[in-house]
């Protein structure tokens, strides 16, 4: 893909990220952090694309390790965030 287009996307996403959480109550800092941490596991997509039948053995296994690690990040991150948020209850 066109390099400048990729950079363009990157810059816009950066501004969007800054705007998104300008005002978040401090109560939610931990869930916000661990929730966004789970999103950074998106690198799993890149890892999957590295494990091709046409790839050499070494890169396939490096990709394998990357998938495992990124999946731990994704699954664990989302679940732990959900668990925390489940505890933030309103008074009955």
């Amino acid at each position, binding site marked *: 893909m066109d390099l400048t287009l990729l950079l363009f996307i990157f810059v816009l996403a950066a501004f969007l990220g800054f705007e998104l959480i300008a005002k978040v109550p401090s109560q939610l800092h931990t869930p916000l952090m661990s929730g966004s941490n789970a999103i950074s596991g998106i690198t799993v997509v890149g890892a999957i694309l590295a494990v091709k039948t046409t790839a050499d053995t070494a890169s396939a296994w490096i990709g394998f390790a990357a998938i495992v690690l990124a999946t731990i*990040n994704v699954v664990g991150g989302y679940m732990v965030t959900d668990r925390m948020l489940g505890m933030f209850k309103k008074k009955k």
Partner: protein
Amino acid sequence: MEHLVNLSYIAAAILFVFGIKMLGNASTARKGNQLSSFGMALAVVVTLLASDLNYALIVGALALGSAIGFVAAKRVQMTGMPELVALFNGFGGLASLLVGAAEYQRAHATINGSLLGKVVEATGIEAVDTFTAVVTVLAILIGGITFTGSIYAWGKLSGKLGGRALTFPGQKAFNALLALGIIGTGIAFALDPTGSIGYPMLIAVIVLSLALGAFAVMPIGGGDMPVVISLLNSCSGLAASAAGFVIGNNVLIVAGCLVGASGLILTVIMCKAMNRTLVNVLFSGFGATAQQSSGTSTGELKPISAEDAYYILEAAKSVVVIPGYGMAVAQAQHAVKELGELLEDNGCEMRYAIHPVAGRMPGHMNVLLAEADVPYEQLCEMDDVNPTIEMVDVAIVIGANDVVNPAAANDESSPIYGMPIIEAYKAKTTFCLKRGKGAGFSGLENTLFTAPNTRMLYGDAKATVTGLVTQFKDS
């Protein structure tokens, strides 16, 4: 097919954006997290539609990773949350590093490996261009720092490596040398990625980045961990984004960058809450040695027995609990909540004042108190409590120290002068629960403890609070 995949990536990115947005509001946070997990699932599923994938390996890896993540998330105690977040974060960083490495290895193998190699090289297909080489170095650099930095932070948080800041002579020069080494080897790699020195240079970048991550976190003390963790979180996003540039994948770039930017904002919020710059937090070695404040306190510490404390609390109409890392260490949150309920039944207004950097990660205290079923409405931010603190009958400081140190407001020579604090010293009476007479994380003398209206309750926080609860129940 390619259109379907790319459209799905756009949908996933939108779900991430809404997910993060909704995480910023208590009533929608849980749904936001679910939305973003749908986005992730969508991105992964459409990626599996790509051709030539080795499904046996991929599905095996996904299953293995899911199982490990599932068990870790289910089993973790809420007090162990900062460590787990750090650990997950480190894995994400390492994954991005490996994506960069795998991509290069594949190109390298294609070029140098087979008989086809020479043909490929001649036609220039699959060769690594300079841009790809640069972003590969970036993915490896950021991912590597994130990995070892997070692992070191995990070690500090879990007490395996000691919480204090570790400094040695020439540390800054050493770290600068590491950084220069990365730049040097990185440039050497990018100039000729497919040449004979390409691979050794890339390995050098990997090794040096891993070393830098650990050495960079080493001089940062436990109390500054909220800043470090949110910064590392930001880095793991940027690493994913860099990996996205390596393989030219939109969704990695967008999602990674969103995380990078939002993590950076959170980092800035943490720094502001301590009235320090990020540079100061990262490089000053704050808390490594006990620092001498000019205003040495002359007052004496006045202990109080649990019984007397009970009588004062029994008569109180307004109580504020100010928790700190000590409450997490003593695991006193359940006892504290029980005391809070008894006080409420006694007709007392109960609140919890939470400093933004109390604990070891952003929002640490909120998670612990929420786990103990403290109603969300009673958790107050610093700025909401301070204006009314003079009306508070009793402020109970549980395992907090620097965040209530009046020196931050009064003593211009104090290293923490200017840091916003919860003004517990203005309450009518202040109880400080403390294990011993030692100084806080910054090593500073806390004049709150010797203030005229302060009474010290020595001992394990959990035992002390349980003692107070028993007094209430017996009477």
